[in-house]
């Protein structure tokens, strides 16, 4: 595996994590997961619904993509911890994408509850990937508490506004000792490329793919965008210059009898 992503000692070949939420059907979801080449996908815990045909469980089984349960819908540390514990029973995994939001209008994290939940889950043996805002202080606190990855947002969940504050993401990266996964806000492929160029270790997309007009094609776009951004980050871009720098040398220019350059 070339240039793998390491989280909590495990290696992944893809740096794109896809969320399963928002897909119009399980068929589309499955095709998008395949097109995205993701190796990790987030799922939620919800009450059984006997009327629903098929199951995400079957999609996971067929595609072999590893599920990462989230705690979406939790407003308190207590609920988030309980939800993580239930997910551990359901999926036999101690990995959890921790979300503790403050309200359902912004879906922004509640800093105090988030820190409490992260601490409790780390204590309980979980591998915690923590969804957070783009505050460098909160990101560092989560890292110091023992989170396995920190997942700052680019913009509110589902907003498609891209990375509103690249400077904050960049400051988070400066002090990162665990993987930083850009989560939330991605609207289009270039947003994902920009995240990787900033130096993020991976990108999570859900709505941007599942709610695109053509989710499968957008999944393919995201797969390439994450690769493009990663390669570009590692290849070392040219510096920005105020004025032009010819890519074609003036040396050996022909004298064709007309005026030469001014």
């Amino acid at each position, binding site marked *: 595996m070339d240039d793998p992503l390491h989280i909590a000692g495990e290696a992944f070949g893809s740096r794109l994590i896809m*969320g*399963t*939420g*928002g*897909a119009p059907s399980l068929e589309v*979801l499955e095709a998008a997961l395949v097109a995205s080449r993701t190796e990790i996908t*987030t*799922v*939620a*815990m*919800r*009450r*059984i619904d*006997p009327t629903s045909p098929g*199951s*995400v*469980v079957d999609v*996971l089984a067929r595609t072999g993509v590893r*599920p990462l*349960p*989230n705690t*979406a819908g939790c407003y308190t540390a207590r609920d988030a911890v*309980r939800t993580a*514990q*239930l*997910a551990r*029973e*359901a*999926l036999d995994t101690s990995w959890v994408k921790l979300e503790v939001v403050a309200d359902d209008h912004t879906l922004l994290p509640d800093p105090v509850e988030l820190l409490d939940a992260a601490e409790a889950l780390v204590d309980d043996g979980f591998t915690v990937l923590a969804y957070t805002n783009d505050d460098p202080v909160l990101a560092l606190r989560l890292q110091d508490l023992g989170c396995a990855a920190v997942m700052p947002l680019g913009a509110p*969940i*589902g907003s498609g506004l891209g990375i509103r504050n690249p400077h904050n993401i960049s400051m988070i990266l400066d002090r990162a000792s665990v993987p930083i996964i850009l989560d*939330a806000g991605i609207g289009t492929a270039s947003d994902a490329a920009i995240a990787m160029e900033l130096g993020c270790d991976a990108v999570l997309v*859900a*709505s941007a793919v599942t709610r695109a007009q053509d989710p499968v094609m957008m999944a393919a776009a995201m797969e390439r965008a994450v690769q493009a951004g990663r390669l570009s980050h590692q290849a070392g871009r040219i510096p920005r210059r105020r004025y032009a720098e010819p890519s074609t040398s003036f040396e050996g220019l022909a004298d064709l009898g007309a005026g030469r350059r001014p």
Partner: protein
Amino acid sequence: MAASITVLVNDAHIELPAGITLTAVLDQLGVDGRGTALAQNGEVAPRSEWPTTVVAEGDRLEILTVAQGG
């Protein structure tokens, strides 16, 4: 003749035979155990204890499964 109990399953009142275990509850409701988790009165019920855990009158059960999520 077996007595029956009333249990709150995912906010719905359901009548079940007295002495029923969590495993049997899932069977009775036709729930495939894969990707499933159970909370009994707000506490997580570990999967390993489902076969031996008995449900009591008035218990609150949450039966959860994996769903699409971002």
